[in-house]
């Protein structure tokens, strides 16, 4: 047997641990907020979303154009690297597949970029195939600015820092490159089921 913390009990374990809770995570009922700087407030008139980088032709949408696209409502569990998880969160957004329709690219990675300068990198395969959305509503309400509104990337199968708040576009890349937190030693991929919190995990 490995390390034991003397006299540590932890929460009562009369019921089995929820199988939907990845290792090292605990459940919350509220919705914690984490961000590295002030919450940006871009007016919807000035807001746009772009697909750019290694593509034959860039694509751009205004807020109204984006909202006119077919949206989906999805219910997913989310997992933050700071150890909290929240189950059955309901979002409405545009599938990234919809945004990439007709885009010709040989890229294997994307960099999400945001108001405020935040970035995060992901494999293209992890934002396609029904795995990622540009979400603009949470629990049936417009997404609050402190949670990333007007729109955030939603990639619920990876740690939540990959679900970039205040997202303004995806830049397609041939090579993987670290985003904001990844530069500071957070994991390049971030699978919560593998506990890939930091570089080398």
């Amino acid at each position, binding site marked *: *047997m*490995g*390390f*034991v*913390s*003397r*006299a*540590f*009990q*932890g*929460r009562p*374990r009369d019921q089995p641990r929820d199988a939907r809770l990845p*290792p*090292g995570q*605990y459940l*919350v009922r*509220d919705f*914690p*907020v*984490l*961000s*590295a*700087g*002030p*919450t*940006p407030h871009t007016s919807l008139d000035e807001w746009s979303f772009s697909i750019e980088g290694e593509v034959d032709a860039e694509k751009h949408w205004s807020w109204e154009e984006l909202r006119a696209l077919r949206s989906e409502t999805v219910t997913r569990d989310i997992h933050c690297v*700071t*150890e*909290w998880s929240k189950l059955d969160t309901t979002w409405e957004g545009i599938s990234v597949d919809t945004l990439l329709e007709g885009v010709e690219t040989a890229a294997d990675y994307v960099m999400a970029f945001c108001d*405020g*300068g*935040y*970035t995060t990198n992901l494999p293209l395969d992890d934002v396609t195939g029904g795995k990622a959305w540009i979400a603009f509503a949470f629990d049936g309400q417009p997404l609050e600015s*402190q949670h990333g509104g007007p729109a955030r990337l939603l990639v619920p199968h990876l740690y939540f820092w990959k679900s970039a708040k205040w997202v303004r576009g995806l830049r397609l890349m041939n090579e993987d490159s*670290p985003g*904001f*937190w990844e*530069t*500071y*030693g957070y994991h390049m991929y971030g699978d919560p089921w593998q506990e890939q*919190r*930091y*570089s*080398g*995990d």
Partner: protein
Amino acid sequence: MAGTALQRRLIWRTAEVVDLIDETPRARSLALAVPGWPGQLAGQHVDVRLTAEDGYQAERSYSIASAPAGELLTLTVERLDDGEVSPYLAGELRAGDKLELRGPIGGYFVWEVALGGPLLLVAGGSGICPLMAMLRLRQAAAGAIATRLLYSSRSLEDVIFRDELDRLVATGSGLEVIHTLTRSVPEGWPGLHRRIDTAMLSAIAWPPAERPLIFICGPTPLVESAAGSLVNLGHEPARIKTERFGPTGG
């Protein structure tokens, strides 16, 4: 927002509790000896992992309050009544106990002497911890870096590091500390008695033209409000760094 590449693997280390200091009725500092610790920057945090006898584990993140040069690593933990980890760390733990942790983690919410000032620190409750690491580093450095700390606590007895802050101010090194109390105040309290607001920040922060470097740490409503106010007052968003301390789980 570029950073320094940090690609070192973060292994779990076994720390030994050397000393426990009760800072307030609800906050306790843990002074830890961590063999092999690689060092940290002021503002970084660690992940702590507790393991029960049946193998059950709980992990939480805590900011480091000690200065980078310190021999011991100090975490200051506020006990949350319904918490799982904080009542253990700030209640059960004794000198000589062992604790698993890994780090340092983070690298954006950090201050180094070379970044200079003026330095505006805004804290709420136990959000003082990473800012205390910055103040301790600043004190050890040569030269006076103009620094102001605006620190919101519920009551005077909830002010963490109160005596040490008084001592740091008394050294005359250019540090000003402004307390505001949000609930009870002692008889004859001459200071501020309300939540941090725009008027308070306007009076205490340097003019935006002096480009203070700003660090804000506390519960989310305080951080959101203070950061938003400072942006509205004209401070550059890129010079405002934030970190959250919530009552979540703890």
